[in-house]
């Protein structure tokens, strides 16, 4: 059996063939169902591109992309995606933004009318979970950068997707808020067993959350390493102070340094 | 039910229609008539031809032209209203225009191309023996026609006597300064506006048409008898009218076009088929009517008119 998210020998060029930017070349990766995968790599190496490929927002020039054992040719509907840039819709309040997926994705879509109240409660409890209680009726441009990012995360989670794609979801947060959200993610993953692909620059974040960490080369990006992280779950936050943990972080750090140097 | 389209807005010359309507003459004939404004004495022809309106008021010359082109046009004239058309060239004495058409030579004339009076210009020029090469024609739209003359930017204009003359007066041109060259008085012996009917409708409802005309003739005779008393019927339908002005307009229409010597002699509403046939010669020159114009009998059908004694102008 192949993985839940499966990219094989993918190549992607932005723009024209001749003067375009070759973003990914010969990239392969495979994430199993229920697995928590993290992707790390230097800036501009093609991580966001990878995320868009896996959700079918763009199609590769060559190679194949499969999600849930189906070849992806257009956007998939089982994913929840948190874009790197929060891109909230400015005409909707934060709560309405968070509830957007419910208006699109089945079965919520057909239930939304009849169970409006329950859904609103759900969205509000998610907002509370990330520390945005009371900001639901503010417009996204009335939130700070970090708050927008948290709302963005809620939007990715609200419809209980089977596949969660998170593109640097905690980049604009302070260390404490971030660690809190790590634990939120850990618990949610433990509870709902969805598959997660997380792009991050924070190696501690990657190691703490992921079952497997993929390391990408500089552009044109491809996978240069895969590191299993075998700490038992649920992982206490104190794990991050343990030596075994920091060893892995350092190991990954070395690999990225090599990747950058090679470029 | 008859939907009737006038040639123009509700103004003095439309008084006979409203007399017939408001005094119940149409109702007496068992008719339910609605009268709508028009957008020119040509526009009403297609409105009747297509049956959108069963009857209408419009220019017989334009009707001849259209019938010439389109022999199966479903319109015929059934009652003559303007025994002489109000087509005129109007000039100003101080600009050198006199009662003699020859005085137009070497002058600048203003004309809106769709103007019916201007439409007869070639025939008029030929009839009067004018050298048209010395005359410049400027395209001036309806709204600026009289102001341009008032300002002396043109020496004379084409227009209906009872509208352009009054308009000039309203712009402060003295009565004796205005020269009106009625084409009909200068050799252009032709007809003007008629009541038309859709042929299919007339065939199916000859009595309705007859009744309509009977009622309308009554209206006309009353208006001719007392123009001042006729105007209030129009005012009913158009609040913005000026009573004196409309009275003057109606009087001019009656004197110049309706109660003409021929109409007084032979009764209102009928035509002289010879004159009609002859007028087509003018149309050949002015409107490019072909050498085989429609038969006068096809154009005008007098069979719906009441007997002549009921049509005599007192």
């Amino acid at each position, binding site marked *: 059996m192949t993985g839940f998210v499966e990219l094989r020998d993918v190549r992607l060029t932005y723009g024209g063939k001749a003067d375009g930017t070759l973003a990914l070349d010969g990239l392969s990766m495979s994430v199993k169902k229920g697995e928590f995968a993290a992707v790390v790599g230097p800036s501009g190496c093609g991580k966001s591109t990878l995320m*868009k490929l896996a*959700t079918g*927002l763009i199609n590769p020039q060559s190679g194949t992309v499969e999600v849930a054992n189906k070849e992806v040719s257009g*956007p*998939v*509907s*089982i*994913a*929840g*995606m948190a*874009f790197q*840039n929060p*891109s909230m*819709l*400015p*005409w*909707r309040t934060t709560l309405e933004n968070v509830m*957007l*997926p419910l*208006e*699109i*994705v089945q079965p919520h879509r057909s239930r939304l009318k009849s169970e409006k109240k329950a859904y609103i409660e759900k969205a509000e409890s998610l907002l509370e979970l990330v520390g945005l209680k009371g900001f639901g009726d503010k*417009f996204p*441009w009335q939130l700070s950068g970090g708050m927008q990012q948290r709302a963005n995360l809620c939007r990715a989670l609200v*419809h209980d997707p089977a596949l969660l*794609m998170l593109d640097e979801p905690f980049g604009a947060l302070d260390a404490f808020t971030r660690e809190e959200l790590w634990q939120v993610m850990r618990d949610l993953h433990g509870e709902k067993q969805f598959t997660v692909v997380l792009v991050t620059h924070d190696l501690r974040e990657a190691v703490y959350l992921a079952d497997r960490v993929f390391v990408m080369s500089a552009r044109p990006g491809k996978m240069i390493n895969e590191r299993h992280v075998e700490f038992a779950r649920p992982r206490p936050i104190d794990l991050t102070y343990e030596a075994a943990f920091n060893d892995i972080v350092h190991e990954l750090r070395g690999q990225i340094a090599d990747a950058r140097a090679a470029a | 039910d008859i*939907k009737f*389209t006038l040639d*123009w*807005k*509700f*103004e003095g010359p439309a008084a006979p229609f409203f007399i017939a309507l408001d005094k119940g003459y149409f109702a007496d004939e068992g008719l339910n008539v609605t009268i*709508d*404004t028009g*957008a020119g004495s040509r*526009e009403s022809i*297609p*409105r009747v031809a*297509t049956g*959108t*309106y069963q009857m209408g008021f419009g220019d017989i010359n334009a009707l001849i032209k259209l019938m010439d082109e389109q022999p199966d046009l479903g319109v015929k004239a059934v009652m003559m209203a303007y025994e002489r058309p109000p087509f005129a060239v109007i000039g100003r004495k101080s600009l050198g225009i006199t009662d003699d058409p020859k005085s137009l030579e070497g002058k600048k004339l203003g004309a809106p191309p769709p103007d019916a009076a201007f439409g007869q210009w070639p025939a008029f020029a030929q009839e009067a023996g004018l050298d048209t090469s010395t005359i410049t024609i400027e395209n001036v739209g309806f*709204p600026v026609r*009289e*102001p341009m003359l*008032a300002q002396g930017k043109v020496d004379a204009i084409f227009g209906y006597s009872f*509208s352009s003359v*009054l*308009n000039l007066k*309203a*712009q*402060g041109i003295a009565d004796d300064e205005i020269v009106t060259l009625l084409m009909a008085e200068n050799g252009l012996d032709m007809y003007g506006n008629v009541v038309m009917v859709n042929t299919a409708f007339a065939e199916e409802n000859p009595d309705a048409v007859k009744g309509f005309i009977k009622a309308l003739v009554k209206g006309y005779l009353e208006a001719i008898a007392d123009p001042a008393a006729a105007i209030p019927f129009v005012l009913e*339908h*158009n*609040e*913005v*009218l*000026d009573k004196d*002005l409309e009275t003057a307009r109606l009087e001019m229409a009656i004197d110049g076009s309706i109660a003409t010597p021929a109409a007084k002699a032979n009764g209102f509403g009928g035509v002289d088929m010879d004159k009609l046939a002859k007028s087509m010669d003018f149309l050949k020159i002015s409107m490019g009517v072909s050498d085989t114009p429609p038969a006068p009998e096809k154009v005008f059908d007098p069979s719906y008119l009441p007997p002549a004694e009921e049509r005599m102008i007192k």
Partner: protein
Amino acid sequence: MTNERWIKAAPWLWSIGLFVVWEAAVHIFEFPVYILPAPSDIWGAIVKYWSPIWKNSLQTMFTTLLGFLLAVVGGLALGLAIGWSRAIYAGLYPLMIGFNSVPKVAVVPILVIWFGIGTVPAVITAFLIAFFPIVVNVATGLATIEPEMEDVLRALGAKKMDIMLKVGIPRSMPYFFGSLKVAITLAFVGSVISETVAANSGIGHMMLSAQSQFNVPLVWAGLFALAVLGIVMYAIMAWLEMRMTGWAHRSGNRP
């Protein structure tokens, strides 16, 4: 604060200023009334003919609004259709542009032959003249949507219809409302044009009657009535715009 007051007063000041200059110009250059009546003449006409002006205004207002509503619905629908499908865009657009380069006066007589004179051709003319700016602006709005916003929905596997409803339409609302402001004034022009050709009532009819009465001040009073109606309708549109697209007008209330 006083600044605020000035701005509140500005429309009145400018209008009054215009009228004063106009009145003065008429007196200084001694324009005859049939060229340019002075505001005082026009005012006289307004007072004198208040009742017909009022009645005809109502009629024009009614036809205009009806035509405008049709134009809003039709223009929005067509604009969305054009933004939706490149085939529709490519096929329909040129025809529409061609049609729109044609003065609507030329179309009115045809309408009259089909529908008789009166309200129907006026409504249709208002519609025909007003819907084009709406179509163009909505289509432009749709064409300039940031792909990032669409991606938010595409990533959820949303159908094209959903993207249209949730992103396309809201994002092009500022364009849409911008066009409404143009369309409503055009709708007035359309119904008045039609009324001058084919109607027994309405401001257009009244103006033409007045013109053949050589009652120039009344013609201008009609124009003035149109201007006032236009401003009122515009203000309503602008108010609606602020309510509906306040999110896009954020910079307005900046210091």
